[in-house]
């Protein structure tokens, strides 16, 4: 009996957690007329894509998706590269003062973006990078790499010394050792970092909001957030917009679930 009580209370919890997603999906496929007569709880009488199409065209959602993919993808690749370089010097090279260097990276990762926002806005204006994807890519490469450096340094600190020694005896220089030995062996960890960086950058809101002012450069969360802030959408269009924001997240979740779970464990033991 007690077993089932626990099971059912957890199922109830899961239902509560999922309910908002279900509500969004149900109402995104209603027509505005259906919504105003039946309210948000009635089942839709059919699948109407009007709200979704109207929203898609209004914000040019394809363009926003592409912006998000370009920004998050570039950041994930570049931040992994930068993290590997840093961690190679700190974790394997054990350069002098590495503890303090690590502390600086850790602080960089903890700083609230509010304390960087105005200077970054100012510098972006001064260098002509304001309102460009490149500015956001550079900034988030550094922010994500600060975490990556921290995590990878502790991973590479335990890298088997014999392998490095063997590579050196075979006449490999440091660059060759990095590319041919360290990177291939660390591939699983690098993969997890790539996934993390991609999703984290995809979900970023504050700095992209500040730096990407024109419609054609905005990412998915920024475009949705700005439109929501203007309070110009009716209920079906709002849920259509929410659905379009949810779908990529769920796709990532399904694709990356394994990597995510593995990676969270890696993060937890830092």
């Amino acid at each position, binding site marked *: 009996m007690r077993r089932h009580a626990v099971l059912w209370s957890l199922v109830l919890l899961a239902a509560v957690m999922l309910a908002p997603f279900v509500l969004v999906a149900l109402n995104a496929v209603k027509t505005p007329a259906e919504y105003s007569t039946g309210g948000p709880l009635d089942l839709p009488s059919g699948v109407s894509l009007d709200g979704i199409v109207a929203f898609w065209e209004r914000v040019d959602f394809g363009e926003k998706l592409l912006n998000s993919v370009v920004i998050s993808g570039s950041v994930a690749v570049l931040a992994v590269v930068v993290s590997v370089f*840093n961690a190679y010097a700190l974790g394997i090279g054990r350069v002098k003062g590495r503890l303090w260097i690590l502390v600086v990276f850790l602080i960089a990762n903890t700083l609230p973006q509010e304390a960087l926002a*105005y200077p970054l806005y*100012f510098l972006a204006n001064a260098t002509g990078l304001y309102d460009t994807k490149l500015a956001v890519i550079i900034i988030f490469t550094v922010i994500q790499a600060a975490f990556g450096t921290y995590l990878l340094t502790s991973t590479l600190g335990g890298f088997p010394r014999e392998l490095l020694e063997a590579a050196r005896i075979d006449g490999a220089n440091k660059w060759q050792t990095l590319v041919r030995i360290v990177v291939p062996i660390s591939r699983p960890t690098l993969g997890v970092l790539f996934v993390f960086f991609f999703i984290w950058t995809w979900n970023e*809101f504050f700095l992209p909001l500040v730096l990407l002012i024109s419609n054609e450069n905005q990412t998915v969360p920024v475009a949705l957030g700005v439109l929501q802030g203007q309070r110009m959408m009716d209920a079906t269009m709002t849920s259509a917009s929410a659905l379009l924001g949810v779908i990529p997240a*769920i796709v990532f979740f399904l694709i990356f679930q394994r990597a995510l779970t593995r990676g969270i464990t890696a993060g937890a033991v830092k």
Partner: protein
Amino acid sequence: MSLVPTSIRDRGSYLLFLIPGGLLLLAVILVPFGMNIGISFTEWSGAGTPEWIGLDNYTRLMSDGTFWASFRHNVGLVVAMAILPTLAGLVIAAALFDFIGKHFGSKHASILRACVYLPQVLPIAVAGIVWSWILAPRDGALNEVLRAVGLDSLAQNWLGDPDLALWSVMAVMLWIQVGYPVVIFMAGMQRVDPSLHEAAELDGASWWGRFFHVTVPQIRPEIFVVLLTCTIAALKVFAPIYVLTRGGPGGSTNVPSYYSFQNFFEKTQVGYGAAIATVLTVLILILTTVFLRVQNRGER
């Protein structure tokens, strides 16, 4: 022939690998952060020359009711985003790992875990849109549910009532946050030696007894990590406030990060905004140091 021992020459050439990352860090984080501190000692509208006013912005902060209120709201968010999710996460994770996993199979446990974790993968801005629609006063889903079950009197203007708005935001944040501790704690519980549980069971310990005396002490490192990262996240919270309430109604959900944003870009009091951001940063750094100290002491 070089007289420098190879090990030192070695370290020197490793240093080359730090150059790109170091320069980027300097340009994107260290210099801007220094600039922010500098700006906080000036009065500046963002255009023209900043005027040096020393500590005036900070003395003004001390007597600014909005600033203090924003920190009080932040305390509420720490409760909703760090303390409650940690407590709930411990119970949920233990129930999933220890109970569902053992009696109904780990597949059931991981499906339930995925459901609880799902809100974590949403961009927070999107979660905010979902909830501002559910909590809408006139035709929002929550009020419709309450009316449908005859509890009309409980239907509220959840985000529009100054007395309620912060509570509503806290509830939304709890929904967003709780999956993170659940996943981390479940991973930690896999580390716990099962013989500890068996020994406690032989001694006649109840499930709650084992929970408090075996599970919780064993996953203490994970609890620390979760509390620290969630508290920092709560202090930095911006997107949900921007999307759900814009700090309103009447400033009742304003938080320091949103307040500094308002000063930067809406009120063009850049110096004052920079002072708020600096105070927030100092607070976060102090908190992180204290946490890490306590954690180290606990491990020794």
